[in-house]
Each structure stands twice: as C-alpha cells, then as structure tokens.
C-alpha cells in the first residue's frame, strides 16, 4: 500500500493521505477525476462499493469506497467536498463506474449536489416537487414544507444533465423515450416487481427496447431517522431494510458499532450469530427461489419453497421471538440465549432441507420449460457486473470472487470451511443455480458449527449509553443478495452524525436496463426473479 501512496502523491500533489480503517485520500473537487481515473484504470480499483454524501456543516462532501475485483478486501477511501452550499457542484465519476449513476442521483436527492456531466440528474427517491434536501443538517423535517399530496402527476419524460461550459453550467434536457415507443408501466403495483418498483418499459412488440427504472415508492428516510437515534435504537431499522436478511444486516451494524466502541463479543455470541446468519441466508434464498418460480407461474413450486421455509421461521420464532424480523442481535452479542430446543430443531431441519433441495431440482431445475426460459437469458458479463458494482450470488454467477465471508471473514466464518460458488455463464440459470448451491453450502456451515457452540456469555456487558469515538467506520457483510455495507461518521456523540447503508439491491436494479434489453417481457420477469432484489433495501 506504501506504493500507492507515492503514486497518488505523484499524480495529485496536495492530496491528504491518512491511514485509518482503510487508506483515506482527501482531494479537492477539481482533482477528483484525475485521482479516480488513476485508481480505476491503473490500479485496478474497479468496484465502487459505496458513494456517500455527507453534510459536514460548512461544506458538502462525498465519500467514495473503492475495492478491487481481484481482492475485495483491499479498499481505498476517497473524500472530497465543496464549500459552496448554495449551488454545490462536483464532477461525476459515473462514466468510470456505472454504479455511481444512481448513487450520485441519491446524493443529489439528499443534499442537492449537482454532478457535472452526469447523464441523468433526475430525482431518484423523492418526487420532482420535493422542496429542500432532507439529509442536510439544516433541513426542517416539518410536514408543512412537503405536505402529503394525493394527486397523481404525470411523470417527466426527460432526463436532465448539467454540462460545464466556460464559466457557467448548462442544463441539457433529453427525451427518455422516442416518439413512437410503446411504453408499458411495470409497477409500481405489479405482482412481479417484488415490491413497489416502477419499470417504464419501452417495447417493440414483445421485445424490450429500454427500461427506465423508478425508485422511491418506499423511500422511508431511514438514514435521516438514524441521525436522531442512539445506536441501539437505530438497530431496528436494519431489520426492515432487507427484511429477508434481517439478521445479517443487523449483524453488520452491530459489528460496526462493536468495532468502533471496542466491545469484545463473546465467542458464543459469534457462533450463534453465524448460525443464525446462515439460516437467514437459506431463508432468503428459499424465498428467492420460490418467488422466481412464482414469477414464472409455477405456483406449486412457490408453495413448496414457502413450506420448507416455515421450518426456519419456527427456529427463529422460538429463539428470537419474531418470525420475519427477529430483533435478535444487540450490540455486544445476542438478545437472549438460544432456546433449549434450538440445536435439536436445527439438526432436524438440515435433512429436511436437503431432501427439499433434491425435490426442487427434480421439479423445476430440470424442467424443459424452465430451462428454456432461463438458459442464456439476461446474460450479465463480468465487465457489466463489475461496472455496476453487482455483488452476491448474482455477481458470482458472472465469475467474480466476491464472497466477503471468504475475502474478509467476520464472526465465525474463519473457523469453518465452505466453498465459494462460482459460475461463469452469467445468465439467469447460473444465478438461479448459485442460490440453490449456496443453500447447500450454508447447510454445510451450520453442520460444522451446531455441535460446537462454545459455552459462555451470550452478550458482552455494555455501557448504558454507547458513544463512538470520533471518526469514520465501515463494515461490510455478505447479505443474501450481495455485499451490505454500513458507514458511520461519528462526532463522538451517542447518535451518529451520518449513517449510510450500502444497498446490494440498488446495483442489481441499476443493471436491469443493460441486461434485459433485447429480451422479451417474460424475460424481464425471469431476470428480475433471478436477480432477486428487495425494494425497501434500495429505497431505505
């Protein structure tokens, strides 16, 4: 890493380099693109993991977290800020990392920062009529500014981009669709969008010409809410982001706070967390499988998947006290010790699941109709996946090693052995098979741990009020749909100054347009099922 420091300084002489959790480089906005270009093309930092807007009070900044696709554990942080709070502008990096496209729109939504040369500077989550920028510290959250409006407005059909010309900034508007396009609205209320997502799909007969995805139909302002809550209180939001990976996400936030506050988690809690994480992953993949079958209209398969999932939910409910959302992790460990029946129930569940998997393969994987619909449909090349920052089973289907449980092990993952499932095809079938194979691997992990839960405390003693020392903290965990990350900027208070969640599903939906063009409407549904996104996770 020393080498990189010198290279950066050679390119951008006044960059400030700090050794924190990750190497952190602070640059001026005008040097941002130079540095980004170097890191992207020369140093191989081709993954844009997170892009976070921050209101520092006197300036508006953006924090970029970059990683390498060769080794996901190697990360670098770039920071930049603009002091102009009236008309803040920053250069875009969306031409280098396509993942930045939506992230920059999100920053525009939250802070009003305009990214110069960004192709599509519309609002992402909020409506066009929204006044103010909610995540700025001076935003007054009163409902009288933005009252509830029940009128239906037409959606704008133009994209806006800002180009710097001479001294000024020019606004360019382009039409989203061509005049004669047959545009079908898939969503926001549609059975196959897995929530309230809105695809405006331009069709040529049955063939998809273009998709314009609209989010924000369940934008709940979680990040703003977190700023007003203490760390234990903000935990309950993570369960409700991606409700199918409730446990994993909560685990991630807990770990982040524990690391920052220097809390030692007992070994027993680590193992319990790992087992619960894997059960949750199986649950999540089962839902993914079921919903994909349902999208392709195999209702019976859907019900078989849901049937086997109920067994996991019983385990959760008995130990954690909730079916879908357990609220089981707390800072320092887990809320309660495992239920006496826990071990037996898990042991009973493993053979049932194995049998179930066999059944799924026989019923569905081999089925000629399903195969025809999945093989070669929605091919996501390795380059596309990297450009959009796609992670998780979907990226592993395109041949990218990105399993954080292997790359940057946390909890008890370094004590168990398991395979990282990689496929090269990148089509819907590969994504589908990856999920089923990962269930098998998760079972294998649980088998190794279930008999070896160490004795001891289930939760470390923590102070009544947890304050994090000043600084920035990152934590990344492997969720059911990809890498979930949390970024906490603390100013030493009991509440975070800025908390940001990295959503794996956002990258998936962002990539939908590219990979489903040229397919049929039915393919869009199949691809959506195989990508398996959860909308509240995107919208936060």
């Amino acid at each position: 890493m020393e080498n990189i420091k010198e290279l950066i300084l050679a390119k951008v002489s006044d960059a400030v380099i700090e050794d924190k959790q990750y190497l952190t480089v602070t640059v001026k906005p005008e040097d941002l693109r130079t540095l980004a270009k170097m890191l992207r093309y020369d140093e191989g930092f081709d993954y844009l993991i997170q892009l976070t807007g921050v209101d520092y009070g006197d300036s508006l900044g953006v924090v970029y977290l970059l990683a390498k696709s060769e080794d996901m554990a190697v990360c670098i942080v770039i920071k930049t800020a603009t002091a102009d709070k009236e008309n803040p502008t920053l250069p875009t990096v969306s031409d280098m990392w396509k993942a930045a496209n939506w992230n920059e729109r999100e920053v525009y939504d939250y802070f009003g920062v305009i990214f110069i040369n960004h192709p599509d500077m519309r609002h992402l989550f909020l409506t066009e009529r929204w006044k103010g920028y909610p995540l700025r510290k001076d935003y007054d959250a009163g409902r009288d500014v933005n009252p509830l409006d029940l009128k239906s407005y037409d959606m704008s059909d133009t994209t806006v981009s800002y180009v710097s010309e001479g001294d000024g900034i020019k606004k360019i508007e382009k039409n989203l669709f061509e005049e004669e396009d047959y545009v079908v609205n898939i969503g926001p209320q549609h059975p196959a969008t897995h929530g309230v997502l809105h695809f405006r799909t331009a069709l040529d007969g049955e063939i998809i010409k273009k998709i314009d995805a609209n989010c924000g139909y369940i934008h709940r302002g979680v990040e703003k809410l977190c700023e007003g809550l203490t760390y234990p209180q903000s935990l309950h939001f993570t369960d409700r982001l991606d409700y199918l990976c409730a446990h994993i996400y909560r685990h991630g936030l807990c770990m982040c706070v524990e690391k920052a506050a220097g809390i030692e988690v007992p070994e027993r809690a680590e193992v319990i967390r790992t087992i619960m994480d894997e059960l949750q992953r199986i649950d999540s993949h089962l839902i993914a499988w079921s919903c994909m079958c349902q999208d392709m209209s195999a209702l019976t398969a859907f019900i078989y998947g849901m049937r086997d999932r109920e067994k996991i939910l019983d385990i959760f409910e008995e130990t954690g006290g909730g079916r879908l959302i357990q609220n089981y992790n707390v800072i320092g460990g887990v809320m309660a010790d495992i239920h006496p029946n826990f071990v037996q129930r898990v042991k009973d569940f493993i053979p049932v699941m194995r049998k179930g998997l066999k059944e799924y393969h026989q019923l569905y994987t081999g089925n000629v109709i399903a195969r025809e619909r999945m093989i070669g449909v929605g091919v996501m090349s390795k380059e596309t996946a990297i450009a959009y920052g796609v992670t998780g089973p979907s990226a592993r289907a395109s041949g990218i090693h990105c399993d954080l449980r292997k790359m940057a092990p946390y909890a008890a993952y370094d004590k168990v052995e398991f395979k990282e499932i990689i496929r090269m095809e990148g089509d819907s079938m590969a994504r589908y098979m990856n999920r089923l194979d990962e269930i098998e691997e998760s079972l294998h992990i649980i088998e190794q741990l279930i008999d070896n839960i160490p004795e001891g405390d289930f939760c470390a003693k923590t102070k009544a009020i947890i304050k994090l020392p000043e600084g920035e903290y990152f934590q990344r965990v492997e969720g059911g749909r990809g890498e979930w990350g949390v970024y906490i900027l603390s100013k030493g208070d009991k509440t975070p100054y800025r908390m940001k969640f990295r959503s794996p599903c956002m990258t998936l939906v962002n990539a939908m347009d590219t990979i489903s063009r040229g397919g049929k409407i039915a393919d869009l549904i199949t691809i959506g099922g195989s990508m398996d996104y959860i909308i509240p996770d995107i919208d936060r």
Partner: protein
Amino acid sequence: MKSVYNYIISIFKAVYSLAQGFEITFKEFFTKKITEQYPENRKTTLVTFDRFRGELVMPHDENNEHACTACGICMMNCPNGTIKVVSKMVEAEDGGKPKKVLDKYYYDLGKCTFCNLCVLNCPSKAIHFQNTFENSVFTRSKLQETLNKEGSKMREKNKE
C-alpha cells in the same frame, strides 16, 4: 441426419423432464397436508412460542400492584415514541418528601416495532412482552392502550 436425430432426442428429453415434475406433484398429492387450521386449532394444536412478542403488558399481582417506578427509561429507549409514561407527584403519607408515582402508562400497539429495548432496559422488570397475537380491531383508538390498571399502585420493595 444429425439434426433429425437431435430433434427426436430433444422431444424425448423434454418429455422425460416433464415426467420428473409430474412425479413430484403426484407424490405430494397423496402426502399428508401440513396446513394448520387456525381458528379451529386455537385450543388444541396451536403453538405460540413463549418468546414471541405480541404485545406489551404490565403484570399486576392480586393486590392490583405493579412494579413500575415511572422512571421513564422505557420511554427514552423507545425508538419511535410508542410508550408514554405519565407520572404524578404524591405526598407521602408520613409527611416526607413527595414521591413520583405512575399515573398513566400509555402504549400504542399500532406503532410498536417489538424491538424489545424497553423490556431489556427496564430496571424494575415491570413490563414484558406477551405472546398473544389476536389483536385486530375496527378502530385505531382501541390500539392505544393504558397498561396500568385503574387504581393500581406500585409494589413496595420491602414486601417481597
């Protein structure tokens, strides 16, 4: 010739794969169904786990006494203002310092997220979650409950 061969083979393969699916559903047709018949099984086979959090309750003993000291820690810990503790000052009978006692303990079931922070942080173990789930009502105001019963008192420590 090869293509004709492949054509015929593909038909047989397809039929075989469909037959596999038939086999699974056929077997399932005759296996025992797993449906739990909810309202009928309420008194017999319905299992609700002890730890399941259905609604917050404040246990009262036979003397209509509870353990809440009206300290308000639960109210502070609640992330979204579900709990509201209203206390009042009562003159002590022996003329000593006025004491803070619980007047009303408001709890909004329709807002609760069941995060358990109130119960975990309660110093006097005055509240806990109960596993009842049959709480549907026709009016929203019915969900705003007062947990302490009419005329209830705080349990004296020395009685225990």
